[in-house]
């Protein structure tokens, strides 16, 4: 494999790793090269991204990990995008957060962030501003974090009589039929073992 392909592979890896980033060790292990070599390649990648006007991405090196990010100079366009008035709907982040709260309420911000794997401050603000969620109490223990729950406005917006009317999640409904699942699992694993 030559260095040209490495670039593409590393780009894919960094993209998939997201905010967690990748260490030099991880990159080296996937490319099956020495860390020294991986380091050289990353340095090359960073320079070439910075110089290439056709590229909107850059690689940040933070605390020993590399992660993809948008170029600083494009922030002005991102701002334009976010502020465009076309959003009478909720963002993906807000919808996700709302779903987590709806199904797991009452729940603290930290718990939501654990589930989503990303910071959730802003979606919570948005949802509160739209009166879809509210603080419903405080968690036990030190910190006594706010607990969030859905509102009547939420039920109205989604045409629900009450929270129990939320559709069952796939996992939940599948659990109804544990024996079926076992049979499926059996069969799946069995097929796999035949193929291997």
């Amino acid at each position, binding site marked *: 494999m030559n260095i040209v392909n490495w670039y593409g592979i590393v780009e894919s890896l960094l993209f998939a790793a997201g905010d967690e980033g990748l260490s030099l060790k991880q990159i080296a292990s996937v490319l099956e090269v020495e860390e020294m070599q991986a380091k050289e390649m990353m340095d090359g990648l960073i320079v070439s991204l910075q110089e290439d006007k056709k590229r909107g991405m850059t690689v940040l090196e933070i605390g020993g990990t590399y992660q993809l990010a948008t170029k600083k100079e494009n922030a002005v366009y991102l701002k334009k995008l976010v502020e465009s008035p076309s959003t009478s709907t909720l963002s993906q982040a807000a919808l*996700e957060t709302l*779903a987590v709260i709806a*199904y797991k309420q009452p729940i603290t911000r930290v718990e939501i962030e654990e589930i989503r794997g*990303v910071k959730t401050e802003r979606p919570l603000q948005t949802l509160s*501003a739209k009166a879809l969620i509210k603080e419903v109490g405080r968690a036990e223990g030190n910190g006594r974090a706010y607990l969030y729950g859905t509102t009547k406005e939420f039920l109205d917006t989604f045409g629900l009589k009450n929270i129990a009317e939320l559709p069952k999640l796939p996992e939940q409904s599948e659990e109804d039929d544990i024996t079926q699942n076992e049979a499926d699992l059996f069969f799946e694993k069995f097929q796999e*073992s035949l193929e291997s």
Partner: protein
Amino acid sequence: MQHYNVKIDAFEGPLDLLLHLINRLEIDIYDIPVAEITEQYLIFIHTMKELELDIASEYLVMAATLLAIKSKMLLPKHEEEAFDEDMTLEMEEDPRDELVERLVEYRKFKEAAEDLKELEHERSLMYTKPPSDLTEITKETKSEKANLEVSLYDMLGALQKLMRRKKLQKPLSTRITRQEIPIEMRINEIMKELKGFKGKKSFNDLFSVSNREHVVVTFLAILELIKRRDIHVTQEMNFSEIFVEATEGI
């Protein structure tokens, strides 16, 4: 010797079962020998009964349909047809027509389901990322209530994306994941159990823990041991108890 469990609902319904029979017997779907297929179908239903499996009512309805078609095929031509010979060709309906039509129609979607599976696989090879958090570059949100154009499906869709993502990122995250039982460990346990036990051990006894993962791992361990020829599995007759013993002991 059968040393595996068979998926009890290998068929999606009576139409699926019929398609399978047609395929297996290498029959032309447009010219089904009704007597033969009915016999096979009934044998199948009978076997399911013997296995004490629940037979969905749809299967029984289809059995009745097949019997009805079979008897119609045996009946002599209707009298009316003799009256007007010109009409005969048009009037003469094959009793099988409706069933064939349903089978052909169902088969289309069964195949389309396979296409979807393939598409889903292709798509799963391409990873997308969640939207970035743009908090820092935007202003505070203004308080604005309602008039949202969102539906429950939007929310469930978002949840799907989240779950897909979680699945992908599991090994990357530092979160504590479920304890997995290594197959190799279970293999050693089983061998120890068998060696410490003179003679044959019931297959079912190996599945003492009813935890789903444990069951699957045990099953895989047994398969592996069979492959390695470390154990010997016997069954006197179909559906009777299966016994397992260490090869060494024989």
